């Protein structure tokens, strides 16, 4: 099953030895160091023309006057912002460096270009610290400083415009309340400031306060209504999912995106007839997160009481029937694999959760923490356990605990290192990211700006900029423009061929 998707991850940033360093400056140094080293010729600007962050999926625009300044993401603040040859965007968002994957069409490709983003960030941070006088900048792929601040790891899914938003809210909310048992990243500390003692499944659960809304930085909603499709708005919406944790384990990311995409397909096809509505979903989200024994039961409006795993099993059961009904034996291999792994993970979560320590972030982290607690007799408020939580997400292979576990073969991988390395510079082939990436790679000196839905050329001898719209995410693929780009030695030739 194909769906246009992407992720965007804000990384935690720390200037070693300087806790009060300005994070915007440090983030800019990281992004600029990478841009300077890898982007040849002129650096293309980000084109903000099509951005509308205050468009609400429920059918109205929020006024700019009442919006929090953090919501005005379309204002070019002069912060570092580059487009990479793999079609991704690397930039500074508020006080964090952020990497948005190029648009892809499969869960495994999300994992690939998301992991490539980690390597881009690692390379960027290393380059930044090579500048004379710069201290080491360390990046963390996590979602909280455990002192009250949270930053996001968002997912984006292209959906049919004809699907009523109410259906999305109804059927996706119980799924989001429960999917953390599969894709939570684990956290030491309870509450937004992390002062409560204990371990919880999700990094983000305690930061969600409402069921539905437009905000991402305050009053965070389980279902975000930002409606900025970066595609034909008559045909598509882009579902902006803000509730996920930043994952390091490849299987966590794979299942997070793969299962969510399946549920969205069922919603689009009106396949879900069961009512799985959860009473008090915001409180339920937290209660599920706070119980790593997985025993907590949420109450459904029909009176049933289900654990989060049982709730996930309901969705799995529906998804199995859906795939059988719609595709039968023609179902693609990756969809079949997502279903099989989802089932295996849920079965193990019911019988022996710790057997997933080599697959899922939260279990890997919890196992390590429990081993330390046993060996050193540590209580949950011990700083060492908080350090382990934090350092799990350090993206440096020599220091990050996820990476140490993966290198020791204690965490399963889906990808080989050389594939990830290639994806740092090479775009996916099935979407417009291919056109964007190849143009940046081949004609960088003639590109003035680019964005998700355009590439703007500044051609020698022409007064006006030439804007090539890429409003359809599935056009501009390799099959579509690969030969054309191969055959055009100059941007001028390409633009001529495209506008002929």
């Amino acid at each position, binding site marked *: 099953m194909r769906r246009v998707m992407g992720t965007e991850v804000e990384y935690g940033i720390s200037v070693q030895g300087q806790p009060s360093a300005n994070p915007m400056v440090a983030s800019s140094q990281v992004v600029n160091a990478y841009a300077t080293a890898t982007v040849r010729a002129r650096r293309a600007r980000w084109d903000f023309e099509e951005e509308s962050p205050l468009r609400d999926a429920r059918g109205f625009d929020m006024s700019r006057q009442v919006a929090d300044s953090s919501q005005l993401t379309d204002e070019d603040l002069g912060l570092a912002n580059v487009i990479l040859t793999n079609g991704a965007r690397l930039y500074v*968002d*508020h*006080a964090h460096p952020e990497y948005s994957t190029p648009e892809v069409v499969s869960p495994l490709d999300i994992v690939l270009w998301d992991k490539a983003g980690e390597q881009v960030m690692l390379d960027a941070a290393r380059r930044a610290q090579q500048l004379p006088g710069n201290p080491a900048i360390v990046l963390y792929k996590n979602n909280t400083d455990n002192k009250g601040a*949270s930053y996001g790891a968002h997912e984006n899914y292209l959906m049919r415009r004809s699907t009523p938003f109410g259906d999305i809210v109804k059927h996706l909310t119980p799924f989001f309340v429960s999917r953390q048992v599969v894709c939570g990243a684990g956290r030491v500390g309870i509450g937004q400031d992390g002062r409560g003692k204990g371990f919880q499944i999700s990094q983000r659960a305690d930061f969600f306060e409402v069921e539905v809304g437009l905000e991402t930085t305050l009053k965070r909603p389980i279902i975000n209504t930002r409606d900025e499709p970066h595609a034909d708005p008559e045909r598509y919406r882009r579902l902006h999912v803000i509730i996920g944790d930043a994952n390091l384990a490849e299987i966590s990311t794979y299942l997070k995106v793969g299962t969510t995409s399946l549920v969205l397909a069922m919603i689009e096809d009106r396949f879900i007839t069961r009512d799985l509505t959860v009473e008090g979903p915001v409180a339920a989200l937290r209660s599920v997160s706070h119980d790593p024994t997985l025993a907590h039961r949420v109450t459904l409006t029909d009176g049933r009481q289900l654990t989060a795993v049982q709730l996930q099993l309901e969705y799995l059961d529906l998804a199995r029937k859906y795939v059988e009904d719609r595709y039968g034996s023609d179902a693609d291999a990756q969809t079949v694999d997502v279903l099989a792994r989802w089932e295996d993970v849920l079965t193990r979560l019911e019988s022996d959760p710790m057997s997933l320590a080599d697959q899922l972030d939260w279990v890997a982290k919890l196992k390590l923490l429990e*081993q330390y607690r046993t060996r050193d007799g540590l209580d949950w408020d*011990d700083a060492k356990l908080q*350090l382990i939580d934090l350092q799990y997400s350090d993206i440096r292979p020599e*220091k990050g*605990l996820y990476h140490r576990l993966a290198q020791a073969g204690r965490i399963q991988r889906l990808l080989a290192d050389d594939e990830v390395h290639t994806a740092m510079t090479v775009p996916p082939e099935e979407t417009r990211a291919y056109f964007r990436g190849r143009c940046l790679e081949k004609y960088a000196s003639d590109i003035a700006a680019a964005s998700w839905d355009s590439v703007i050329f500044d051609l020698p001898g022409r007064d006006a900029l030439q804007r090539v719209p890429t409003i359809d995410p599935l056009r501009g693929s390799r099959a579509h423009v690969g030969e054309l780009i191969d055959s055009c030695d100059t941007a001028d030739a390409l633009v001529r061929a495209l506008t002929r």
Partner: protein
Amino acid sequence: MAQEQKQPRKSEETEEATEVATESDVAERKESLDEDVDAILDEIDDVLESNAEDFVKSFIQKGGE
């Protein structure tokens, strides 16, 4: 255990496997598991930032998104 009646469905191989799972083996396995845990913790100890309390305290972020 060796005198246990043969079950027709079991192959000789699985029976042997059952046979060797004696108590001392379980203990040995637990020991090697403990060693395994010790090994990974030793390795993690080597890379953990020193002075956990200060390190964690100084990790202060601004909100994002």
